[in-house]
């Protein structure tokens, strides 16, 4: 049982995509644990607070006329001319990894236990030891076409501070996004490419926002998942059958996530950390913050799955001390289902109605396979004891979570 340490450096991160072609930055054995650093892709919303003085962050975000450390950001084109930039921002999350689990093969399941999470302090002497996050209400948010105040539309970025003593997050200030010109000369009229440094000379800071309001902290990683098998480069935005951008705040300390393995080694990556998020992640983002996590990895071989809660698992499953949750998506496996250009087509398929349908089917299967209920029993139980909630309505492949309490089965033989 080795404990590994994986810092975030230009060599250990990939930006905006999952890829089966990436060489693992760490290979570990089932039962090993790893401490993994992650850096939020929104750090440049306030460079001074979230990057300055932090060597690793400075290097990763480095982008001048001469040098761009992390050139590719997204699963899009890497040959110019670009609309937005290399990778075209088709996928935005800065992920640390991938980590291979020895012996993992398609058909197996990798269990990832979240042992602990803690925030990454600001390294700028002016803010030393404090924790900051950013929450843009972005163009992909649920509100963007439905605003009532002028100017319409607009993107508004709110910078927060996390207070670990109080376990609460408070807003510091906000600003409305103004067109930003990146070092390559491309103008970004909206938040359309990750890691563009916001020039604070161009924005008007609004102080005193959300005065007196304390948001309880819910530290979690928005994106954790394995590499899919269907394509070489897959946008990090839509969650899918191998996990990814689940954006469920319940995937937090103490939780266990199970992911079906699609490629040899599994290739786990994580990032997109959040200080807090509500169910729906309405504005397009959570309170995006840099977190470090300690994880334990357990490989469940295909042959050992029958008779366990993992029998027949084809989608991500959450287990906490109290509940199991299945994740329904607008499109169950969009990479396989949506024809020749699934990564564009999924943008047109966002639907809670379809996600609810998917969550219902997954939970029915779980109850019938794992808990040996008949279909009628499963349906009755789902109506009276399962809770369905909106996970997110902003990640293209929208999510509905179906949750059932474990205690319900306490008196059941073998349960």
């Amino acid at each position: 049982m080795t404990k590994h340490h994986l810092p975030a450096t230009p060599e250990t991160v990939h930006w905006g995509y999952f890829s089966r072609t990436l060489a693992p930055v760490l290979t570990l054995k089932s039962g090993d644990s790893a401490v993994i650093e992650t850096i939020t892709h929104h750090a440049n919303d306030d460079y001074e607070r979230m990057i300055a003085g932090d060597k690793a962050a400075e290097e990763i975000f480095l982008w001048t006329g001469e040098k761009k450390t992390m050139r590719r950001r997204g699963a899009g084109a890497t040959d110019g001319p670009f609309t937005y930039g290399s990778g075209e921002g088709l996928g935005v999350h800065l992920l640390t990894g991938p980590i291979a689990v020895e012996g993992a093969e398609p058909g197996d399941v990798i269990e990832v236990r979240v042992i602990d999470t803690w925030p990454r302090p600001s390294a700028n002497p002016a803010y030393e030891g404090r924790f900051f996050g950013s929450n843009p209400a972005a163009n992909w948010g649920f509100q963007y076409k439905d605003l009532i105040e002028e100017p319409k539309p607009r993107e508004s970025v709110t910078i927060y501070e996390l207070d670990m003593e109080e376990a609460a997050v408070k807003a510091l200030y906000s600003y409305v996004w103004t067109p930003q010109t990146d070092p390559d000369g491309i103008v970004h009229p909206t938040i359309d490419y990750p890691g563009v440094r916001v020039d604070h000379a161009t924005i008007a800071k609004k102080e005193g926002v959300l005065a007196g309001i304390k948001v309880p902290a819910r530290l979690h990683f928005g994106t954790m998942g394995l590499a899919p098998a269907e394509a070489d480069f897959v946008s990090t935005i839509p969650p899918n059958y191998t996990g990814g951008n689940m954006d469920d705040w319940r995937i937090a300390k103490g939780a266990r996530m199970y992911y079906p393995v699609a490629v040899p080694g599994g290739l786990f990556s994580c990032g997109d950390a959040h200080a807090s998020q509500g169910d729906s992640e309405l504005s397009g983002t959570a309170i995006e913050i840099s977190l470090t996590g300690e994880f334990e990895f357990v490989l469940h071989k295909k042959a050992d799955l029958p008779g366990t809660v993992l029998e027949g698992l084809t989608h991500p499953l959450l287990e906490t001390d109290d509940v199991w949750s299945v994740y329904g998506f607008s499109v169950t496996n969009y990479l396989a289902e949506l024809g020749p250009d699934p990564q564009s087509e999924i943008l047109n398929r966002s639907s809670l109605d379809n996600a609810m349908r998917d969550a219902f089917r997954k939970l029915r299967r779980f109850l019938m396979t794992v808990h040996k209920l008949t279909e009628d029993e499963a349906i009755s139980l789902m109506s009276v004891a399962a809770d369905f909630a909106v996970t997110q309505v902003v990640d293209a492949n929208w999510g509905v979570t179906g949750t059932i309490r474990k205690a319900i089965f306490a008196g059941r033989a073998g349960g």
Partner: protein
Amino acid sequence: MNAQPFTSESYSEDSRERAWQEVLGGFGLQSLAGRAALPSHATAMCRASSLGVRLGRLSAEAQALRPVASRPGPGGAGLPLLVLPLEGGSVLHTAEGRKILGTGQFLLGPRSGDWQLQFPRGLRALVLAVPADVFRGRKVAPLHLVQPLIVDPEGLPDVLARTIEAAAQALDRLSEPEWEAVAQSAAEWLLALASERAADNVDTPSGRAALLQRLYASIERNLGSEGLSVSEIAQGEGISERYVQKLFEGTGDSFSHYVRERRLQRAWHDLVNPAESAVPISEIAYRHGFSDSAHFSRLFRERFGLPPRELRRREADRQSASVSTGGHRGWPQQALVRLRALQGRVEGGERAGAASGRGEARPAPAHAPLHHHLAVDASTVHWGYFSRSLKPLIEIGSGDAVTIETLTQHASDDPERMIRGDAGAESVFHWTAKAKNVDRRGAGPLDASVFGRGAGEGFGVHICTGPIAVRGAEPGDVLEVNILDIEPRGSRNPRFAGQVFGSSVAAWWGYHYSEFLTEPRPRETVTIYEIFADAEEPYAQAVHAFRWEPQADPFGVRHALYDYPGVPVDLAGVTLRREVLKGIRIPLRPHFGVIAVAPREADLIDSVPPAYFGGNLDNWRLGKGATVYLPVSVPGALLSVGDPHATQGDGELSGTAIECSMTGTFRVVLHKKADTVGTVLTDLTYPLIETPENWVLTGFSHPNYLAEFGANGQSDVYNKSSLDLAMRDAFRKVRRFLMTTKGLDEDEAIALMSAAVDFGITQVVDGNWGVHAILAKRLFEP
């Protein structure tokens, strides 16, 4: 440009009108308010093309529209506005008088001038606005349409009307290039139509067009008279027959052909109208001036390609096909049409026995809170509907407590356990070949003329106790209903003394019903649960289950599906499965599925779809210690409670919770409108739930489906269920709540929602689906 959704629900009360006028202003229209006072409801979906063609679907309460510009000017340049009412009955007012638009007709209104279109029963219309710029650089015939024109949907107008109807349905789904193409075509067609009509107006020597219009009108009036002739019409106008003929020749038609065409068209409409399905064909022929029905049939066949009888048969097949698969919830569209055709007042207020005196209404000074008790029996319930016309059982004062017994409508799933020996339940469920204590069950017709299921047709299923009037409550006030206690109602059958039971039905309206994995498909399953409310951790456990088998009710009607409430199940005819959900204990969440005040829109409202008035909220957070605030719509508020649940999951997936009779104690507080200003109840237009920790806001697919769909509401709401819409509604409500009651600006509200508000699924089985938003109170605590 993308489709722009609009709903007044997004705005605080004082900015609602301005926002609505802005939407209308986009079309060069403005609204003249109808009845003010009540909170007005308006929704719209609009989209503009890159060249400025704008199409919108508008829905709002009764009002009149008129052009913004009073004189032609640069701002008013463009083709006449096309306004297509989606329901008949709108009235055009001009200097020359009033004209009623018939079903399918639309208006071509000049961009300026003194006209207005009034929607007395609520505004539901499509509007197409085409600015002159669209045709920039091309020669366009002068379009001096001075007076608004009413256009019949025939030929080009019909094509245009259908196109914009279809486009309006798909506004938010058309891609950018698709929308541009549609908008451009619509603009071209409107241009063609407007040119043609303007030419009619301008080119014919003065008065000729008007004369022709009068002739048409005169013909319409006299179509039914067999002897309608050129001479008769000519005489009526004091002109020669030859001139009449000449006028018609000028339009490319002839008098006799025109008359025949109009008669056949009208006959066609009557033949496909389900409300006329019992009228003999010969009578319809006669009605339209054809005394010889064989002759009529021949002409009809020549014109439409099939004989009248065949048309009718096909139409009947089509309609029955649309309702016969599975069950049908709520009013079918055709039945609503028929109901309106009868123009009969819906019977409200009938209920078993006289209700007076059941509750202990004691007149008392307002300052001393009283505790009332409302027992349940046939005289204190209304089953399956809400109604503003019901006579209240008791009147209570603000601050009074009231203990209300409620019964689950599913008690009849196991009468031995849930009805026998219980005087109240026996009274409500009593139903023999000769007597049925509570006849009406649902908002449907008493004579069961739609499906024949039974009185009320089961369009609404919940047994509601009430209503209770609250002294001094008026529309615009808010009623606070605080749940002090909930007690399950034990079995009164000596065999089961001390035990409590409930039933859960995986019914045909459940979310799962369309996709069973296992045979037989489809099926309905009833599971009976025992409730252990006194256990340390109260729970429910399944007793047994059975598949629904066709049940004959005491009047002999066979119910192949669970389509009518309170049909006593004959357990001899079903197969009981005893080993069901073995070892599984379901934690209790006792709550009332239905807490409602009477809606204002109609006399009889189906109890199934929840909406602004509360009703079938099916949110388990409405348990002991919780409060729901309901906007009052009718004098006295008329509070009813029912649909008790022992527990339910978010989603209520199978169609029901664990339905279990319970008694609740409530404190009822009236908040006068004037006193709500500056409180969280400011401007409340929806049910707001408060628990000790949270505010829970209720979003629906259609927050006020009765206003949004008008006369079709009780049918349409079942066809337009959507979580996506419910999520949108919940989002808008939270935004408004945060902005209005917490003083946040829009950006703050949105930021907070993303970081700290949890959206969950309330139910996907009540027609008007629900998404709720949970806002923790501690966010705002220091």
